[in-house]
C-alpha cells in the first residue's frame, strides 16, 4: 500500500509520465507514426519489471523477416530479402512495404472471414452454392488493403445498403453469410429465424467477443445478456430482406434490356400456347375411345405396381382396356414417356431414367385431372414440346436466362417494411412462443447515450468511435493474431490480468486517437519489442513463469493450411499474384463429393494456382487438405483456429497431389539454379526458412539426399532427372519439418 514510496514505483511513475508526455506530443504534433510503438514497449517493460521478469532476447533477423512476412502477407520473404537483411537491416521499411502489399489484405481478410463465417454455399444438407458470395470476400480484402477506418468497416457490413449508394450494399454480404436451410420440408420462416439468430450471434462474437449462443434459448447465469435481450437484438434485423441477388449499378441497364426481351418472349409464347390449345383438345379427343365398363368389375389395383407389373396388368388383367397412342422418345434413346388412353381417361407414364419405382402407379391415371402435376398437364407439356415455334421460344428464353444469370451481381440485404417486432422463442423452441419485443440494446451495452431503434441506428452504435468495447475487442483480436495470446485473458491470475488490461487499454486509446486505422495498429504492434522477441522457450522457466511472462516473448504456432499451400506454391514459382475474383474449385480426391447433392465441377489450368483465400468454400465439402490443417467447419465464428497435430494432417502434408506437384517444381528450380549440393541446400533453407542451415542440419539433408539418390537411381538412372527426384524428396522433407510448418 505504501509501495509508491519505494524505488520501483518511482521508476514506474517516471516511466508513465514519459509515456503520457510522448503520447501528448504525438497527438498534437502529428509526428510520424513510427514512434508510437515505443509507448507500448514502455508499458510492457513496466509490466515485466513489476513481475520481475526478464524478457526474451530479440529474434534473429531471418526469423523476424520470415515472421513478419507470414504475419502480414501469408507468404515467405525472397532469398534477396534475406540477403538484404543480412547486409543492412531496416525493419521499419520492410514492415511498410508489406503493409502496402496487396497480399496484406488477402491475409487479414482471410482472418476476418473466419470471424464472420464466410462461405460460398448455403450449408446444411442441401448446401446450394452462392455464386455471388465472393463479392463480399473481395470487399473485405480491399477494405483491409485500403486501411478502411474500423468504424466505416463496421457500419457498412451491417447497414451499407442504407447509405443511399447502391454499391455500398456489397459489404452487407456479411449478413448473407448465415447458413440457409433449404432442405425439403423446412418451414421457411423458421429457417429465416435461424439465420437471424446466427447473424446476431456472429455480430456479438465478431465485434464484441461475446458468445451469445446460450442466450438464444434461455437466461444463462454466466451470460451477460438475457434471452429477451437477445431477441431484442434479433428485432433490429427483423425487417431485412434477402433478395436472390443484387445487380451492380453499372449493369442495371443491361439487366433491364434483357428483362424486356424476356417479357416479350413470354408474351409470344403465351400467344402460341393459346393457338395450340385448340389443336391439343382436338388431338386428345380424336385419340380417346368411348368409355368402357366401370373398373369395379376388375381385380382391385395394388398400390405397389412396379414397371413389370404394370405392363402385365395392361395386357393380362385389363387386356383391351387401354391402347397406347404414342411413345415419345427422349434423348439417350431411353423410353421417357408413354401416353396411354385408359377407359377414356388419359394417362401419362413418365419413366425418366431407369428408376421404375418413381413412375406413377396405374391408378393415378384414372382421373382426368387438370392443373399442375396432373397427367393431362404432363401430356400438354409433351404436346408443346413437339411444336417447333414453341421450342424455339423456349431455347431463346433459356439463352436470355443464362445471360441474366451472368450479369455481375452480389449478395446483399435491403430494408423491407416488416415490423421490427420479434417473439421470444421459449427455451429456443421455435414452436413455443413467448413475449413480443421491440429492437433495443441489452442493458449491459447501454453505456453510450444512444438508444438505436432500427438497424441503421444499431450499426451506428456499433461503429461509433465512443463504443470502446468494440475497439477493445478488435485491438485484442489483432494482438492475438500477432503474438499468439490475447491481452485480455480471463483465466490468468488477477495480477497479470490487471497488467495486461492496462496495456490493452492504452493501446485502445491510441488506436482510437489514430482514427482507428487497422494498419496503424498492426504497424505499431509489429514494430514493438514485444513482437520482435524470440519465440524460443527457455526450458529453465517454470510453467507458471512461462504463463505469466507471455508479454516478454513471442509465441510460435503452426501455419494454417492456406499458408502451407500458398507457401509451397510460392516456392514452386507458380503462385498467381492476382488479387480478387471468383472462387476457384480445385480437383478433389475421387469419390470425395459422393456425399453431397451437387456434383463438384473442378476447374483446370493455371487458375488453380491462385491463393488459398480464393478457394471455393463449400460448407458440406470442405477442402480435405485445409480441413486436415484445422479449417473451421463454416458453422460458427472462429477468432483463432485450433492448432492440432494428427496423422491425417501428416498424410495431407506428405501426400497431397497438389502440394507434391508444387514441391517437384520447387526442387527443379533449386537444381537448375545451383550446381553445388551445399549451395543448393543453402538456397532451399533460405527460401523456406529464411536462414542458412546449421552444420548438423546440412549433414542430415546431405544424408537424406544420398539416400533418395540411391533409391531413385534404380529407376531414373543418373543425370538431372535423378537429381530432381532426389531433391523433390528433400524439399518434401523440409516442407514437412516442424520449422517448415511453423511461424516462429
Amino acid at each position, binding site marked *: 500500500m505504501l509501495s509508491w514510496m519505494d524505488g520501483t514505483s518511482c521508476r514506474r511513475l517516471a516511466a508513465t509520465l514519459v509515456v503520457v508526455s510522448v503520447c501528448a506530443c504525438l497527438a498534437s504534433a502529428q509526428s510520424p507514426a513510427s514512434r508510437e510503438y515505443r509507448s507500448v514497449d514502455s508499458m510492457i517493460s513496466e509490466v515485466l519489471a513489476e513481475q520481475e521478469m526478464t524478457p526474451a532476447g530479440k529474434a534473429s533477423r531471418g526469423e523476424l523477416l520470415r515472421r513478419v512476412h507470414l504475419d502480414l502477407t501469408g507468404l515467405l520473404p525472397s532469398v534477396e530479402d534475406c540477403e538484404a537483411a543480412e547486409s543492412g537491416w531496416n525493419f521499419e521499411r520492410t514492415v511498410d512495404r508489406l503493409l502496402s502489399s496487396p497480399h496484406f489484405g488477402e491475409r487479414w481478410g482471410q482472418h476476418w472471414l473466419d470471424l464472420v463465417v464466410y462461405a460460398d454455399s448455403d450449408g446444411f*444438407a*442441401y448446401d446450394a452454392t452462392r455464386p455471388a458470395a465472393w463479392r463480399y470476400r473481395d470487399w473485405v480484402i480491399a477494405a483491409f488493403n485500403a486501411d478502411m477506418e474500423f468504424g466505416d468497416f463496421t457500419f457498412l457490413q451491417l447497414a451499407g445498403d442504407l447509405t443511399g449508394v447502391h454499391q455500398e450494399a456489397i459489404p452487407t454480404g456479411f449478413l448473407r453469410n448465415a447458413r440457409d*436451410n433449404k*432442405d*425439403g*420440408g423446412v418451414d421457411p420462416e423458421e429457417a429465416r429465424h435461424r439465420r437471424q439468430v446466427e447473424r446476431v450471434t456472429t455480430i456479438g462474437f465478431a465485434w464484441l467477443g461475446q458468445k451469445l449462443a446460450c442466450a438464444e434459448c434461455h437466461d444463462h447465469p*454466466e451470460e451477460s445478456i438475457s434471452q429477451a435481450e437477445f431477441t431484442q437484438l434479433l428485432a433490429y434485423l427483423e425487417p431485412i430482406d434477402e433478395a436472390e441477388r443484387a445487380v451492380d449499378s453499372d449493369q442495371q441497364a443491361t439487366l433491364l434490356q434483357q428483362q424486356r426481351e424476356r417479357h416479350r418472349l413470354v408474351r409470344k409464347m403465351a400467344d402460341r400456347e393459346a393457338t395450340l390449345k385448340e389443336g391439343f383438345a382436338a388431338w386428345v379427343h380424336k385419340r380417346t375411345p368411348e368409355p368402357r365398363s366401370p373398373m369395379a368389375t376388375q381385380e382391385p389395383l395394388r*398400390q*405397389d405396381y*412396379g414397371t413389370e407389373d404394370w405392363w402385365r396388368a395392361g395386357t393380362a388383367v385389363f387386356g383391351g382396356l387401354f391402347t397406347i397412342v404414342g411413345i415419345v422418345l427422349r434423348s439417350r434413346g431411353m423410353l421417357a414417356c408413354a401416353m396411354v388412353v385408359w377407359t377414356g381417361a388419359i394417362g401419362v407414364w413418365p419413366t425418366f431414367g431407369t428408376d421404375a*419405382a418413381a413412375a406413377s*402407379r396405374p*391408378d*393415378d391415371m384414372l382421373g382426368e385431372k387438370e392443373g399442375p*402435376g396432373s397427367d393431362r398437364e404432363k401430356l400438354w407439356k409433351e404436346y408443346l414440346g413437339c411444336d417447333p415455334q414453341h421450342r424455339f421460344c423456349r431455347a431463346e428464353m433459356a439463352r436470355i436466362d443464362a445471360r441474366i444469370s451472368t450479369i455481375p451481381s452480389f449478395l446483399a440485404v435491403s430494408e423491407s417494411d416488416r415490423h421490427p417486432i420479434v417473439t421470444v422463442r421459449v427455451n429456443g423452441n421455435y*414452436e413455443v412462443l413467448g413475449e413480443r419485443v421491440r429492437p433495443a440494446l441489452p442493458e449491459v451495452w447501454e453505456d453510450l447515450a444512444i438508444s438505436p431503434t432500427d438497424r441503421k441506428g444499431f450499426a451506428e452504435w456499433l461503429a461509433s468511435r465512443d463504443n470502446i468495447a468494440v475497439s477493445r475487442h478488435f485491438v485484442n483480436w489483432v494482438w492475438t493474431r500477432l503474438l499468439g495470446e490475447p491481452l485480455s485473458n480471463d*483465466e490468468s491470475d488477477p495480477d497479470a490480468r490487471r497488467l495486461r488490461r492496462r496495456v490493452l487499454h492504452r493501446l485502445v486509446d491510441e488506436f482510437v486517437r489514430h482514427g482507428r486505422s487497422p494498419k496503424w495498429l498492426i504497424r505499431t504492434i509489429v514494430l514493438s519489442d514485444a513482437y520482435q522477441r524470440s*519465440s*524460443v*522457450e527457455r526450458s529453465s522457466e517454470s510453467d507458471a513463469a512461462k504463463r505469466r511472462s507471455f508479454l516478454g516473448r513471442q509465441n510460435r504456432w503452426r501455419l494454417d493450411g492456406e499458408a502451407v499451400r500458398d507457401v509451397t506454391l510460392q516456392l514452386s514459382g507458380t503462385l498467381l499474384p492476382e488479387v480478387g475474383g471468383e472462387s476457384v474449385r480445385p480437383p*478433389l*480426391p475421387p*469419390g*470425395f463429393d459422393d*456425399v453431397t*447433392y451437387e456434383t463438384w465441377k473442378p476447374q483446370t489450368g493455371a487458375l488453380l494456382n491462385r491463393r488459398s483465400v480464393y478457394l471455393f468454400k463449400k*460448407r*458440406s465439402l470442405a477442402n480435405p487438405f485445409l480441413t486436415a490443417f484445422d479449417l473451421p*467447419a463454416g*458453422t460458427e465464428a472462429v477468432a483463432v483456429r*485450433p492448432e*492440432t*497435430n*494428427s*496423422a*491425417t494432417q*501428416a*498424410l*495431407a502434408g*506428405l*501426400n*497431397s*497431389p497438389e502440394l*507434391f506437384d508444387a514441391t517437384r517444381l520447387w526442387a527443379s528450380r533449386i537444381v537448375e539454379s545451383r550446381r553445388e549440393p551445399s549451395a543448393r541446400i543453402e538456397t532451399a533453407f533460405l527460401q523456406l526458412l529464411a536462414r542458412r542451415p546449421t552444420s*548438423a*542440419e546440412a549433414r*542430415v539433408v546431405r*544424408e*537424406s539426399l544420398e*539416400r*533418395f539418390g540411391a*533409391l531413385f537411381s534404380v*529407376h531414373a538412372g543418373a543425370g538431372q532427372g535423378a537429381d530432381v527426384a532426389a531433391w523433390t*524428396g528433400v524439399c*518434401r*522433407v523440409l516442407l*514437412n*519439418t*516442424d*520449422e517448415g510448418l511453423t511461424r516462429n
Partner: protein
Amino acid sequence: MNVQHLRRRFFLGTASGLGAVVAAWLALKGQASRKLPDEQQPRRVAKPTERSCIFVFLVGGPSQFDLYENKPALSHRHGEELPVSLIHNERFSFIGKEPKKILGTKREFRRYGQSGLEVSELLPHLSGRANQLAYIRSLYTDEFEHHAAQLLMQTGASRGRSPSIGSWVLYGLGQETRDIPDYVVLWSGESLSFSSDLWDQGFLPSRCKGVLLGSGTKLSPFIDSPIGFSGEVQDATVRSVAALNDIRYRDTGDGRIAERTAAYEAAARLQLAAPELVNTFREPKHIIDGYGLNDPVTRGFGRSCLLARRLVERGCRFVTLFHSNWDHHRNVHTEVERRAKEIDRPLATLLADLEATGLAASTVVVCTGEFGRTPVGQNVLDPAHLQGRDHHRHAFPAWLAGAGVAAGNVVGITDEFGWRPVEGGHHIRDFHATLLALLGLDHRALEAESSGRPFQLASDEAQVIPELMA
C-alpha cells in the same frame, strides 16, 4: 464406471505435459508396425472391458410400420382419418392441411425367437437373429427435420458443433489402436444428405474426430504416397523429418515438435496398415457370400459391414455405418422393400460373424434412424392416393445387439396407431446414456469443458434404459 472416467481424466492431465509427450513419442519410435491378424490365424478374442461399437444409422428415417411395427389397426382402418386428438397442433414436414389418412402396410409380420419379436417379411435374414436383439419400440426425439434430427441422434444436440457420440466414446475410453483410426465412418447407398458435422469432435481433442472412409477403399484422401515415393522412400522421408525435428527440438525445447514427429510416424504406420485393412480378398467364401459382396444389391452395405467387423477386430473403438436413403415420402411400399433388401442379409451376417468370432462379447451393435415415419400417408400431388409417409418423431424403434445387451428383450408399447408411446417411452438421450453404459461409460461423469462450461452427450436427467442391458 466412475473409475473409468477418473482414469481418463488422469491420463488427459498427464499427457498434456511435455514429458509425457516426449515419453509417448519415444515409446512409439522404433516400434515396428504391429502385424495384423491374418485370416488363417485364430481370431483375437477381446476382453469384455475393451468394448467397441458399430452404429448402423439408417439415414432419412426408415418406416417402422413396414419393418418391425405390426399395427393391425393401420391396415383395418386404411384410408380413414387418424383421430384428431392425436394430431392436434402437430407440425409435419410435408403433410399440409389435407385430411390425415391412415396408410396401411402391405407387409406380413411373424413372430421370431424366444421373445416373439415381430419382424416383417422384408427382413427374412435379420429375423433369424431375433434372439440376439434387444428391441425398443418407444424412442422419441425433439426434431422432425432431417439435419437437426440427425445431429440430435449423432451428437445429442440439434444445433451447433457438438461432439458426436463416437467422439465422446473415444474421449471416454482413450486411444486403443495406433495403426488405424479409432473412429471410422463408412457410408453406403445413395449419395445423400448428411454432412461431416455428424462425426465431428466439436470441442473435444481433434484425435476424437471420425475418419470418413469414402465410397471407395481409401482410409483417407491422402493415404497414398505420390507415385515413386511410397515404401522405402516414404520411410526415409519420415526419418529425415524426424531427424531435422530432433535438432529443432534441442534448439527450442518445444514439446509440440515431438508431438508433430509422432503424428508423422503414425501417418506412416497408417499407410502400411490401410491396404491390409481394406483388402477383403482373403476372407473365406462363406463370409464374402454372407455379406453379399457378390450381389450388386447388397454389395455396398455389405462391404461397410465387413469393414466394420475388420475394424473392430483390429481394435477400432467406434464405427458408424451410414446407409441411405430411407426418406420415403413417395412409393414407401416399393422403396422400403428395395432398401431392406440392401441391408437385411449383410446385417444378419454381421451379427452371426461377430458371434462366431467371439467379437460379440466386446462389440455393441445398434441400428436406428434419426426418427420414424408417420402412420398416416402422404401424397404431395394427390391426397387421395397415399404413396408415402412423412417424418415422425414421437415414437420410433431401435435395436441393439452384442456385448452387455439384454438379448431377446422388447421394450415399450405404443398406441394402436404407433403414434406415441403408451408405456416405456424414452427420449433418445436415454438411448445415448444406455449406449455409453454398454461401453462402460457413465453419461453423468463423461463431460468436457468448452468456453468454461461443462458439456455432456446426455444430460444428467437422462436415464439408462435397464431393460436393454443384460
